[in-house]
């Protein structure tokens, strides 16, 4: 198993009432941004990743969001290039580059440079980009899926085909494709696809034999999607295994339960992840298929409590900040009970992690450690240290015991189907019983 670490790198000094008043992180005015604070935060987050490698994490995961204090990684490739030089061993996983909103030729060059500077440690990851990315970059959401597919296929060619050549597609046109930067990993870098269980993406991943990394989704829809992946893999003629699946797990670890719970509340800062962007920005015109919209709503609904983690009501200008805070706080216990947040001491989080690992059987597990507003660097580094020294070794033992093979151990898509031609189960029994 690959075990990695991730942080959203939030702009942590934003007053949370600004987010509540806007009912969304996206859309809060950048008048609240102070570059001096930004400078300190960038260094703080980069230092965390360097420390994580020292502790033995296999993967340093970054992500990208635009015009949003939720994440400072607006141009994640810049951070990746720095980590490529400051680290020696860990994979640098970009989960992911929003293909439809970027220039694919320039992206092919950037990623090849990161792969070379890191001497082959890049994991490329392609995403469609949240709805708000389409708005922030002014890219037509109605063509999001078409642009994603076309940019993906173009980049594969740009990396592998000798130039110069001309490209004339539907959404992209280049008269001179001849990048003098090629990936260190030949013919193309390793690739995982992060997602929020959109069925089209899951099927597409299975067809391309790309590992699918579910981004902190509830376990039930995750299980459902991985079955969908495995069914498509069967149609493609291979048996999916743990190496085809990754999972991002929110976690906070501290020396005591009390401290961990205190820090855990930071997940709800400003409304937490559900407040990433209002529905009209998450789903601009034409962004999602109807099927995907329905499924997404389910993925963000806690099946045990019925709490909707994804805001579905339209924004009103008269937000009752105190009521909104109260409503957010009320979700805290439910998210812990469903293992969306795993919070505690190294000892108390391990059985919960094991439960998740047994249920969804991932070959890649990324620990989205401690997050949110008023968290000190000391608390973050303590959480990382405890994870690295006490949790990570135990997770490795579980992974071995459970046969959770990473993409380095078994090449994704290389596992043959049983002689019957019918696939074996890819998820554990516990969730199947719970379904």
């Amino acid at each position, binding site marked *: 198993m690959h075990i990695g670490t991730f942080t959203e790198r939030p702009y942590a000094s934003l007053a949370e009432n600004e987010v509540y008043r806007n009912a969304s992180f996206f859309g809060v005015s950048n008048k609240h941004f102070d570059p001096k604070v930004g400078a300190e935060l960038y260094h703080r987050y980069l230092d965390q990743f360097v420390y994580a490698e020292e502790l033995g994490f296999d993967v340093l995961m970054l992500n990208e969001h635009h015009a949003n204090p939720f994440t400072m990684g607006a141009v994640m490739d810049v951070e990746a290039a720095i980590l490529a030089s400051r680290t020696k061993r860990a994979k640098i996983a970009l989960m992911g580059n929003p293909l439809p909103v970027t220039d694919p030729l320039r992206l092919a060059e950037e990623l090849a440079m990161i792969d070379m500077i890191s001497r082959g440690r890049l994991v490329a990851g392609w995403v469609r980009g949240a709805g708000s990315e389409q*708005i922030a970059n002014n890219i037509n959401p*109605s063509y999001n899926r078409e642009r994603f597919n076309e940019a993906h296929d173009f980049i594969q060619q740009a990396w592998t085909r000798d130039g110069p050549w001309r490209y004339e597609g539907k959404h992209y046109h280049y008269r001179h494709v001849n990048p003098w930067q090629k990936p260190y990993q030949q013919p193309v870098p390793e690739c995982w696809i992060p997602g929020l269980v959109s069925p089209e993406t899951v099927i597409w991943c299975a067809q391309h034999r790309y590992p699918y990394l579910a981004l902190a989704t509830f376990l039930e829809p995750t299980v459902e999607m991985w079955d969908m992946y495995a069914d498509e893999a069967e149609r493609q003629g291979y048996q999916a295994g743990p190496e085809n699946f990754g999972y991002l797990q929110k976690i906070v670890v501290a020396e005591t339960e009390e401290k961990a719970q205190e820090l855990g509340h930071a997940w709800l800062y400003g409304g937490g992840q559900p407040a990433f962007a209002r529905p009209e920005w998450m789903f*601009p015109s*034409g962004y999602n298929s109807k099927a995907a919209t329905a499924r997404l709503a389910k993925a963000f609904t806690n099946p045990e409590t019925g709490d909707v983690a994804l805001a579905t009501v339209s924004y009103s200008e008269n937000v009752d900040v105190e009521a909104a805070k109260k409503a957010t706080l009320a979700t805290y216990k439910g998210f812990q009970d469903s293992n969306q947040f795993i919070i505690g001491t190294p000892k108390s989080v391990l059985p919960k992690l094991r439960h998740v690992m047994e249920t969804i059987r991932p070959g890649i597990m990324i620990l989205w450690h401690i997050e949110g507003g008023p968290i000190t660097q000391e608390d973050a580094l303590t959480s990382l240290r405890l994870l690295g020294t006490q949790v990570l070794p135990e997770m490795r033992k579980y992974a071995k015991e459970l046969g959770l093979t990473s993409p380095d151990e078994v090449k994704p898509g290389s596992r043959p189907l049983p002689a019957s031609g019918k696939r074996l189960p890819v998820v554990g029994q516990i969730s199947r019983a719970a379904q």
Partner: protein
Amino acid sequence: MAVMEMSAREKSVQVGGDTLKYLEGGSGAPLLVLHGELGFPGWTDAYEQLSKSRKLIIPLHPGFGVSNRIDWIMNIRDQACFYSRFLQEQSLTPIDVLGFSLGGWMAAEMAVNNAAQFAHMALVAPFGVRPPSGEIRDLFATPTQNYLDASVADPVGAPELSKLYGEPGPKQYEMWEDARAEAARLAWVPYMFNPSLPRLLEGIKGLPTLVVWGKDDRVIPASTAEVFVKAIKGAQLELLDKCGHMPEIEKKDAFLARLNTFLASR
């Protein structure tokens, strides 16, 4: 589209290799009606009244929930050319045209291509031109219900709006999503206008044109009307008081009176 009695029937026609569905209702000289960006609204009172003296031909824009999407149509000019071909193949030219909002933009682009295909052109708060001041409301990043509420000056004083859209069910929601997605395909950027349209409109000759706008339009600032009226030779302007983006709903009687006078003029 609210479920209601419609004095029209749905027809289907081949235009080149593509299929177009349209509604036909009423009797009299044909009147081409081009609906707006939220899709066909249903058989409005205005349609009912117009159908008493005119045969309404209402194409259901490809991709807006009824006619299938046509992949090669990527902007309003493509759409306009497609409709010109429809009119020509059905021997409907010259025809009077009434275009609402996004449909008004389509009519204007058609007139630019060939003004002779129309006998009269009535544009009701059309998109297509950048407002000289202010901005066009963002349909693509706004909940549809909020957009609809902003489409009239006074939602309370527009009972037909709630009759048409009062309690949108899943079917209406899906139609809106289809319509918004297709409108985005056609006009995401520049947002709902064609920068060259004001110049192109200057080339229209000999086409009687009426531009109708609500003074309190909160979707497209009413100042935009001036651009159309200045560019199209001889165009008449009707600005309606206490009226938003949907004069046909909000000020139906004044709108119809003005329209009928215009269509009867020579």
